[in-house]
């Protein structure tokens, strides 16, 4: 596996160019250009605020600014998770001409696709930070957790992108399956609500490896609390395991790409 990572690193320039290409073409010939990177997180945040407003009416508790901030902090990475998995899944099929015509370490396609979405995420973080500043969320030492948590999410998305891209190369079913799951996954993931809302069912929600890092973001950034470490460790272990399995699986099936695409 290390040799695969190394050969990927040797083609750093290619990874850079493919990532750059995925970003460049997405917004070519569009009037809004990079503003599109903000639109989807914005829609999710609005949905979350709307949901929270409804909940506050039901429970009679007023809608706190803190809740809005917490929804935003989780919605922006969620947008990345969804688009990263989606683009990663389609990446090999989208690059069919390259897969069948030129040899290169093919992991580079899902990785570049996910990274291009990651850049969108970073862009979307700028208005998010502004929003948090306006909401007077403030800073604390706990913010140091943020980079680690973001990297954890990135690793998870990369692992899924790598496996699913190979899967959908052989069976287009995978792509449709992914679409369906991604559409409804927001209901099963504590994005628009907090895991604590569910009381003793919290554990079930946190078993979803994406949930602990999202909760950790809300905890550290908005509530200035340390993250729930055991759960974060669980999520990290799952992420690393997934990445290792993904790379091994990818390596195993890669020789059959060109003739099965």
């Amino acid at each position, binding site marked *: 596996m290390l040799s695969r990572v190394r050969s990927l690193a040797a083609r750093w320039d290619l990874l850079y160019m493919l990532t750059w290409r995925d970003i460049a073409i997405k917004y*070519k010939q569009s009037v809004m250009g990079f503003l599109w990177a903000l639109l989807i997180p914005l829609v999710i945040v609005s949905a979350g605020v709307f949901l929270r407003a409804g909940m506050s009416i039901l429970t009679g508790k007023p809608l706190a600014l803190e809740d809005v901030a917490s929804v935003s902090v989780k919605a922006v990475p969620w947008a990345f998770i969804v688009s990263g998995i989606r683009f990663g899944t389609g990446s090999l099929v989208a690059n069919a001409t390259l897969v069948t*015509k*030129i040899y290169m370490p093919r992991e580079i396609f899902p990785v570049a696709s996910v990274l291009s979405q990651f850049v969108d995420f970073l862009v979307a973080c700028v208005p998010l930070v502004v929003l948090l500043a306006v909401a007077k969320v403030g800073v604390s030492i706990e913010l140091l957790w943020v980079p680690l948590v973001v990297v954890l999410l990135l690793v998870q998305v990369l692992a899924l992108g790598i496996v699913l891209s190979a899967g959908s190369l052989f069976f287009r079913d995978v792509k449709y399956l992914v679409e369906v799951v991604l559409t409804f996954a927001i209901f099963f993931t504590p994005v628009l609500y907090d895991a604590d809302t569910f009381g003793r069912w919290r554990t079930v929600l946190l078993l979803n490896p994406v949930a602990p890092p999202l909760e950790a973001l809300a905890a550290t950034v908005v509530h200035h609390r340390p993250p729930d470490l055991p759960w974060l460790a669980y999520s990290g272990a799952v992420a690393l395991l997934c990445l290792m399995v993904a790379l091994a699986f990818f390596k195993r099936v890669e*020789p*059959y790409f060109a003739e099965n695409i």
Partner: protein
Amino acid sequence: MDGVSKKFRKGELHDSLRDFIPSLVRRALHRRPAGALELREFWALRDVSFDVAPGEAFGIIGSNGAGKSTILKVLAGIMRPTLGTLRVGGRLSALIEVGAGFHPDLTGRENVYLNGTILGMSRPEIRRKFDEIVDFSGLEEFIDTPVKRYSSGMFARLGFSVAAHVDPEVLIVDEVLSVGDYMFQTKCQEKMHAILGGGATVIFVSHNLRAVTELCHRVLLLEHGRVVETGPAEQVVQTYLRRALAGVRDTANKDVFISKVAVRGAGGEAVAFRSGERAWVDIELTARRECQKLSLSLFLRDEGYQDAFNTSTERLGLGTFTLRTGESFRCTYQIDLHLGQGTYHLGVSVVRYDIQREFDRWMPAASLFVSADRDVRGVANCYPEVLVLGTARPPAAAVPPRP
């Protein structure tokens, strides 16, 4: 490459899970050895072995579907052979399609960088060679235009230009010399020679037999996935031509048909000639019904099936002839092959000009392989001699300055 075989499946593979599960079960129940074929499978390559020395130019020829591109894909690592092993030493670059990875929405400049990194160059390397690449393509003016607005020729030119500047140790080329106009093709050929001259190993697949013989030292002939012959370029090209012509002609319902065409040189039947050599073409006609006012036409076409030479008995002032039912008729043409180096296809037809009727046509009835002792290209050999070569005048004011 040693004993390499590659198995493919005809028709659609199970493309959704519904088809896949039954086949998985089937496979789990009885394992088959890799060397056996299942239903609908066939060998695209069977037991192919060859070695290419460093610095050598190696050609692969064969008709469509013979497995040429599969060899290249296996060599390039795009596919893994079902059986056998192969080893490639050195930095390999495969030109299986020019402009692979070009994105239509990106500009020429952006695509040069993208395609260059795809082909294995680093970005600083591309930056260094950028002007050279653009210069070679001749597309300076359009380099900041999205390539979707390019003509297909421009697209291919830019693609080849990038590919030609990769500086690989092993270069694999599939039919890329046939892009662009004549001028650009010549440029490509020169570039290929330059790459070869630089010590790179080249593996070249083409239908253009002339290009193969000009470029390659050794050639491999492939037929239905198997190696027919490996050897010196000219020899293998001749084998190929001889085998390609061995097909059967349907003459069942023709009033007059060409029953035999044979080409002789000074030493008997031949397919290889030196430029300027004399050849005889023996033709035999057979008539099923009586036909009048016939003439016999002979023509030579070059590899692009362009007329190189064309004549007929009537045009040579011999009048027309008549064949009675059941009669055979013989004619021998003598021609001098003042031709440039290359492969020529010889055709024969029986025509009656006044009613514009062609009774039979046999094309290609034979293929001739013409070699020239000097490097003369094109269809004709004009036997060039250089009589004067040098500076005619001192460069000073002797030439009036431009107004």
